[in-house]
């Protein structure tokens, strides 16, 4: 019988796996729907004929605008939101690690998770 989770701390592995599962499946859902729509009816927004010469991300219009586009099932907006969810998933995992080590009172690893999360946040904003 295959063990579930890290053998010495099963809950830690299981919880982090759950965080990654949610992020990955959310991304897969958005990406699949977006790609399906791209295949069926094209990009859904005026982009010119050569899609490989993608000019700029829709997110430059602001997060609310692109979420509205995604809600209207615009193909490129759905794929962009899916990619962002995927890119943000490791950061969510670091946040979850910090929280789980906090619950275990492992202060050195809490500190490390906090510092790593700060560095990622800086990169996102920078």
């Amino acid at each position, binding site marked *: 019988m*295959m*063990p*579930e*989770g*890290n*053998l*010495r*701390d*099963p809950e*830690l*592995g*299981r919880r*982090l*796996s759950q965080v*990654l599962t949610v*992020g*990955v499946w959310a*991304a*897969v859902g958005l*990406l*699949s729907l*977006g*790609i399906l729509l*791209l*295949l069926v009816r094209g*990009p859904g927004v005026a982009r010119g004929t050569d*899609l*490989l010469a*993608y000019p*700029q*991300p829709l*997110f*430059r219009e602001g997060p609310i605008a692109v979420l509205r586009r995604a809600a209207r099932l615009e193909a*490129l907006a759905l*794929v962009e939101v*899916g*990619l*962002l969810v*995927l*890119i*943000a*998933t*490791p*950061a969510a*995992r*670091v946040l979850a*690690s910090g929280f789980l*080590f906090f619950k275990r009172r*492992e202060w*050195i*690893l809490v500190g*490390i*998770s906090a*510092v*790593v999360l700060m*560095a*990622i946040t800086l*990169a*996102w904003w*920078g």
Partner: protein
Amino acid sequence: MTLGFFLALLAVAASAGFVGSLVGLGGGIVVIPALTLLFGVDMHYAAGAGLVTVIATSSGGAIRYLRQGLCNIRVGVFLELATTFGALGGALLAGVLTGPSLQLIFGVVVLGASVMVLRRQEEHGISLEGDRLSCLLRLEDEYLDHRHATLIEYHPQRTVLGFLLMIVAGVLSGLLGIGSGVFKVPAMDTAMGLPIKVSAATSNFMMGVTASSGAAVYFARGDINPVIAGPVAIGVLLGARLGSRLLPRLPAVAVRRLFVAVLVIVAVRMMLEGLGV
């Protein structure tokens, strides 16, 4: 986007995710040249898709490795500190230290690492006593070897050396814009004495974090093209899922040889680029 283009991207990406998740690399080494050479994709978009590949391989593979107990979370979180700051340092140094000589040095270092990884006989060399820092951080762990149905206990050694090597791995990944699995796995396997499967799974777990920062920058710059990166992400996730199912069932020596083969390809490619060939 045509169905043929989508399926071709999916196949390339799935093979990258499969190999990457098996040996603890990001898979960018497969995706980036394939996109530029086979599909004529601009290098910026290929590099952006390469970062998405690393994140998808990491997240897709780690889901299973965490449940299987192959991934050492404490080692991964501890070493992420080194790789994250190393990568930031590398990005800052990128303007100063670039060029062919760096690629040449990189190639030689990776070739040296491949020899060390190949020579290690872990089946007789897993330590049962950790150093002081690894005991303090409780980095010791165990995993179930499915092939022999035995529980393998291991205690990390030379934790400080492993941490320093991870800083170097981070700096080089920031400098060269690559996933640093080629350095992470040898640092854990050869320097810290972790089993090769644990090293590959833990490298897989860690690398998404470094790539996430880089991908955010690429995304904001418009270098992540959804028409390319979208199908690549789906393909990589599928491949990584398959690879992570296979890893526990493979013999350690096969994983070691596969990893060394990939290292040699990476090293030779980098050295040829460095020499301008």
